[in-house]
């Protein structure tokens, strides 16, 4: 029987091969189709991209027709180059370069020769297209922006690059794809699916009808329209207020997590990235490494939040029983938290309870509250983990999962963080006290700040912030309907909210009250440094303001960051209050304040940054060295001026 093994293997193996060959050659037709790209011409039909509306149904982004001239280098014959170039208004050099580029991509596949012609350019070319063998016109639809704001929200449309074509077989050279913003995140919904028509050609390259009666043809599927949660009116207003300033505004509807406004400044008119000027304009935006118009500060600007974080410190301390409403702390314009270590404070001093602690933003009070929270447990590493867990239940220190393609984690330290900083251990609450006042290792982005305020407004829950309101013919991600409940008891929010309310009545934001609207808010200031000519220079503080309103049944939660804007109350506070008034009342009563803000320009302050060569010159200093200073100044913990990296762009 042993004799039979090899012959049997041979026969079985050969049959196996033949079955597979039979499958490849006879049963499966797709290979034949693929190989016949010479004999079969593929025509694509591009569907229109879906429209984008705001929450109230106002049309923001529509489409316009555009025409690309495509070339198949191998098929160019008897071309009158001079006439061709004149017609398209390009130089002969340009022409040769473009042809060479197309040849490198593939001599037998179409690539874009000249993109995005308008109607009249197309008409002139179309007249003579018969003379230009090897060229044809591909119709596409381009974006037509109905508004001149919201560029960071929409993103833009660009041609796919090699990398994308390789990764995703749907895209062919010359196809368009959404980049940044909702155009990127909802690409597949907005894009639709292009249709394919296979056309049989004879050996003289003439089209003789559809291949196999259109058995493999597919019909284009229209892109779906979407509604954003953005309110176009306050988005526009926010961008207007931020003119000549740098920073971001994020407004969220607390009850739903819907993003009402997402402002970054400076920004640009989205329509400059459409048409033949696109690549020139894009290059300008992309290379502006100082103002970074393509960088969404609302999502990406990561800073130690400063005073607004005291809200968290207070809530966690209450939840942990480290303090109660009546706990009194004595402030000597600061407090001595360890031998020889003093944290300064700008409040009026004296004996404070929680309420006044909040509206006067007392460092001593919250430094103490934080230390008590940590000292409650024997092991500080355990205590900081407990604290960290509470804070993270507000969605902080993590990617929040919103539906925009960029973001930053922020940072909420835990025991692991300090194990890295102090590998030998031995640290105690005194070493990390600055976390309590939103400095130290704590980092937050504006959208996280806004989400924190939304959670406080809801007294303990939030919905993941999102920008999609409705997809025509589809449903939005169910995760945006999921309620996230924090680890803080509902009733503990009451005293904090009442303190925040008096920030406007008695505290740091007295100047920007709006008659008839009960606003709860908190000012903040983030210090930042840069390196100029090799020296570390302290820049004007970033101005931060967080708020929600009205106090009962909140409709809007907002975070405002103005880079180098100074104290929270000088510029971020007024902007927040104007935004709130605009959203709730639809009109502005305090026109003098509005005028002042509109006229405020921080250009002079930014000019100092403009002198720098590279954004990378901005440095961050090691944190522990600052902590070891004898006198602890609350705002001197390094906050990198712009800790961002370049925006994600292909």
């Amino acid at each position, binding site marked *: 029987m*042993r004799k039979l093994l*090899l012959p049997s293997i041979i026969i079985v193996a050969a049959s196996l091969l033949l079955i597979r060959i039979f499958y490849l*050659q*006879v049963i499966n037709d797709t*290979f034949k189709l693929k190989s016949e790209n010479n004999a079969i011409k593929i025509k694509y039909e591009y569907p229109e991209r879906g429209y984008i509306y705001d929450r109230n149904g106002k049309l923001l982004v529509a489409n316009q027709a555009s025409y690309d001239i495509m070339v198949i280098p191998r098929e160019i014959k008897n071309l009158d180059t001079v006439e061709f170039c004149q017609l398209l208004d390009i130089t002969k050099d340009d022409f040769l370069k473009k042809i060479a580029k197309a040849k490198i991509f593939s001599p037998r596949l179409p690539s874009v020769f000249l993109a995005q012609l308008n109607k009249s350019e197309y008409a002139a070319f179309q007249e003579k297209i018969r003379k230009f063998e090897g060229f044809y016109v591909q119709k596409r639809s381009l974006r037509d922006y109905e508004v001149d704001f919201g560029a960071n929200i929409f993103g833009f449309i660009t041609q796919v690059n090699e990398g994308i074509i390789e990764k995703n*077989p749907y895209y062919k050279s010359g196809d368009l794809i959404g980049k940044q913003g909702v155009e990127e995140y909802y690409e597949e919904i907005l894009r639709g699916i292009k249709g394919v028509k296979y056309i049989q050609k004879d050996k003289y390259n003439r089209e003789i009808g559809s291949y196999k009666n259109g058995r493999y043809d597919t019909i284009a599927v229209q892109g779906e329209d979407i509604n954003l949660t953005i309110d176009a009116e306050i988005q526009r207003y926010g961008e207007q207020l931020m003119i000549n300033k740098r920073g971001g505004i994020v407004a969220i509807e607390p009850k739903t997590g819907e993003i009402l406004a997402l402002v970054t400044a400076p920004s640009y008119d989205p329509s400059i990235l459409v048409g033949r000027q696109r690549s020139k304009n894009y290059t300008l935006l992309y290379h502006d490494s100082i103002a970074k118009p393509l960088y969404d500060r609302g999502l990406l600007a990561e800073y130690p939040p400063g005073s607004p974080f005291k809200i968290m410190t207070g809530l966690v301390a209450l939840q942990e029983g480290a303090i109660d409403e009546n706990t009194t702390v004595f402030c000597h314009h600061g407090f001595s938290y360890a031998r020889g270590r003093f944290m300064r404070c700008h409040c009026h001093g004296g004996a404070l309870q929680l309420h006044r602690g909040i509206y006067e933003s007392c460092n001593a009070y919250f430094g103490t509250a934080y230390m008590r929270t940590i000292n409650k447990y024997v092991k500080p590493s355990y205590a900081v983990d407990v604290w960290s867990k509470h804070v993270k239940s507000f969605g902080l220190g993590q990617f929040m999962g919103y539906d925009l393609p960029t973001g930053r984690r922020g940072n909420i330290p835990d025991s692991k963080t300090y194990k890295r900083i102090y590998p030998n251990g031995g640290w105690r609450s005194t070493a990390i006290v600055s976390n309590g006042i939103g400095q130290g290792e704590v980092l937050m982005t504006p959208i996280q700040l806004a989400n924190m305020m939304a959670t406080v407004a809801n007294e303990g829950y939030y919905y993941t912030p999102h920008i999609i309101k409705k997809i025509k013919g589809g449903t939005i991600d169910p995760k945006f309907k999921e309620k996230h409940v924090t680890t803080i008891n509902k009733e503990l929010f009451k005293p904090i909210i009442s303190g925040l309310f008096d920030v406007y009545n008695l505290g740091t934001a007295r100047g920007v009250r709006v008659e008839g609207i009960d606003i709860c808010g908190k000012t903040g200031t983030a210090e930042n440094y840069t390196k100029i000519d090799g020296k570390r220079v302290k820049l004007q503080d970033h101005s931060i303001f967080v708020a929600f309103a009205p106090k009962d049944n909140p409709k809007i939660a907002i975070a405002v960051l103005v880079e180098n804007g100074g104290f929270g109350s000088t510029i971020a506070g007024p902007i927040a209050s104007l935004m709130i008034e605009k959203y709730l009342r639809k009109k502005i009563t305090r026109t003098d304040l509005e005028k002042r803000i509109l006229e405020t320009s921080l250009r002079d302050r930014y000019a100092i940054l403009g002198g720098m060569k590279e954004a990378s010159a901005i440095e961050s200093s090691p944190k522990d060295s600052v902590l070891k200073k004898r006198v602890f100044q609350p705002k001197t913990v390094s906050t990198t001026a712009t800790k961002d990296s370049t925006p994600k762009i292909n």
Partner: protein
Amino acid sequence: MKNQSVKKNIDWICVIIYSVLVIMGWLNIYSSSLSSMEGTSNKQLMFIVLTIPLIFILLFVDGKFYEKYASVIYVIGLLSLAGLFVFGKTIKGQANWYSFGSFGIQPSEFVKSATALALAKYLSDSQINLKDVNRQFQVLSILGLPILLIVFHDPGSALIYCFLIIVLYREGLPAWYIWTVFIAILLFVLTLILQPQYVILLAFITTVIVYWRSRLANRNIIASTLLFTLMSGFVFSVNYVFENVFKQHHRDRFNILLGKTVDLKGIGYNTNQSEIAIGSGGWFGKGFLEGTQTKGGFVPEQHTDYIFTTVGEEWGFVGSVVVVALFVTLFLRIIYLAERQKTKFSRVYGYCTAAILFIHFFVNIAMVIGIFPTIGVPLPFFSYGGSGLWGFTILLFIFLKMDANKVNEW
């Protein structure tokens, strides 16, 4: 006249199939190199012409010569492989070439015959009983040495030698060797497709079922446990080797094959293009020199390892069947002749010849049609290359000479 008797006694069926395959191979090389690689087909033609004197020499040499000097040939073969570590030249990522000016020689193609001779010589001793563990060790060493020397340059060829275990089975190697190899291959593939823990679960269930189903007298709880432990250990080590020892391009080859990764432009390009080329052939193919994929130069290495794609595209399913049928006939014919041999030496050698040719044929075509990982193994008599062609010619014609000689020995 000796030559007369060879002429009379040589197995003309094999010779004719051999010639047909070589000529078909050349036609396909001509077609695939027409547009892009001028001179390739001329070079191959020269290699083919040079096989004629080679064949005459092989047939003139006394039949006893091979048996007498088998060990010497084997040792020279091993030395030539060892020499690669010092003098080897790297061509297409494999350092298994000796270079003489513009020509290169791949010793591994010739060592296959040498190993077959050595195996035949060792087993021809009637005293040898492969049930004996010492003998098993010795005979496996004969196989193991060339594997050790070649595996680093050319893992594909190492695989070829492993297959020779089937010849040892024919000569009395216990069946559990075959089972072990079979189960090892099965577990290997399963481990790559599934998670290791599922494979172990599967092995456990199988072991339990086999245990329950076997007769009471055969039940051995210790042996079963040991077997299961061995299988689990193997699964884990496969997983470890795959993740940590294999290089990325090896992993990619398996992942593409198993459908885990789709990457039509990168590493999956070869297989995808060769499938397209073959698939586009249809029933009757596009005709000689009419293959659009072949002309377009879509399939890389088409004239060497991927030569079968030209057959598939230009000659269609019918042509593929003819080629496969010719090969299968040749293999079965060789086995038939081998079983007919009067001496154990020539029988074993014949068996080795069939096994070596077959495994090349199978691995090559299976790779081209996408059911085997990409391994650089040529298609015998078809693929471009002097060393390959001569190596296979030597392998085959030594056997044909032995076969023709059998009358004289009587």
